[in-house]
């Protein structure tokens, strides 16, 4: 018997402790688990390390976690979008630490954390400030930086639809970081629009195999049963 459905967003994040490392899917406004983030904000765990491509805009998503002072560190490729006022404020006052990672290095570090790989050599960032302090090497005349895996305690991800086994499909560019993050956390929690029956997703079309997903929560389910 495998049923990964959880009854509410609140319950889905209830065991995230203070100082947890939490990955959050999304790129810009696309593919963000906004309801899980809001549940995490209300849950109130502090000292969080957030791994995400962006740092949120206005009062929404990761920005709300920064505003409420729940974030100690953010690992991110592009924290400063138009409207990232809370990140900018927390950064300026020195209350949040930033680890800036080139985007492709960020997604690959997450991927290898899920794939059991101990590191990879990337040409990205070689010879730049973002490679400072990192091991480098030159192979066949080309410079590479050694990058290490980036795992997390929890991943909060967003998909279009899932089944009780945790198989997921996405909506257009909403995939972005979500499939890699699903594989790279000890506990992966997926927010979906709808949950379908096991077997209803075409096996050729499943993007994230259920083995990567621990909990699944849908909007309707929440509304119907909360």
């Amino acid at each position: 018997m495998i049923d990964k459905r959880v009854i509410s967003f609140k319950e889905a994040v209830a065991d995230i402790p203070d100082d947890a490392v939490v990955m959050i899917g999304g790129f810009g406004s696309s593919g963000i688990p906004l309801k899980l983030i809001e549940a995490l904000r209300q849950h109130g765990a502090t000292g969080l390390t957030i791994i995400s491509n962006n740092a949120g805009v206005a009062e929404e998503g990761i920005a709300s976690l920064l505003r409420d002072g729940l974030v100690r560190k953010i690992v991110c490729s592009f924290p400063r979008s138009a409207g990232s006022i809370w990140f900018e404020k927390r950064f300026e006052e020195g209350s949040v630490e930033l680890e800036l990672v080139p985007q492709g290095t960020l997604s690959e570090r997450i991927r290898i954390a899920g794939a059991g790989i101990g590191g990879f050599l990337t040409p990205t960032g070689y010879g730049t400030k973002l490679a400072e302090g990192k091991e480098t090497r030159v192979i066949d005349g080309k410079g590479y930086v050694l990058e290490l895996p980036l795992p997390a305690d929890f991943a909060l991800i967003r998909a279009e639809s899932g089944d009780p086994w945790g198989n997921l499909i996405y909506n257009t560019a909403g995939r972005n970081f979500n499939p890699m993050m699903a594989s790279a956390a000890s506990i992966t929690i997926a927010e979906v629009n709808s949950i379908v029956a096991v077997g209803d997703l075409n096996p050729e079309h499943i993007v994230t195999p259920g083995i990567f997903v621990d909990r699944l929560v849908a909007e309707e389910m929440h509304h119907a049963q909360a």
Partner: protein
Amino acid sequence: MLRLNPEQMAERVAKDIPDGAYVNLGIGMPTKVANYVSGDKLVIYHSENGILAVGPAPAPGEENPNLINAGKQYVTLLPGGCYFDNAESFAIMRGGHLDIAVLGAFQVSARGDLANWATNNDKYPPAVGGAMDLAVGARKLFVVMKHTDREGEPKILEQCTYPLTGTGVVQRIFTDLAVIDVTPDGLQVVELFGSNTFDEVQALTGARLLPPA
């Protein structure tokens, strides 16, 4: 001197995008290039967040909040396009599968170093996105930028003074004054706009240029 406006600069870059090319356009001025690619060419645009064959902006009311480009603008998908995750998207970029990337820049050096992600203002929070991956990965890297900055200082220099995005990565620079190639012999002027002279352009450049053949 003739200084192209940003639309004219985008139009000039578009002339150098061949039919059938796979292209990534950076945020800002590079994005405008697509507007000027001739309709008889099929160019497939890649967006770093995980799209191949990005189409035009959707009609009002037709926006899908998930379907955005790297600049966070709503887009559509052309027939024949597809989606993939970010790791695969950057495999495409870093793996040398894109024919051309077009990026803006703060500075370019005589040997093709690119600086386009940070200034030396440490208080301002930095952001890098996918620029470094594109810089190392695209088969050809075009830079489109004004020849000089707001203070009139040259942006083409012997050495960049801003933090680098990549070293030795730029092939061609399109400015508002000229088109310049980065070659093993140095910065080769390949085109001077209007009646701009080599000496005029050299005077606004912080590195030695080679005159057009």
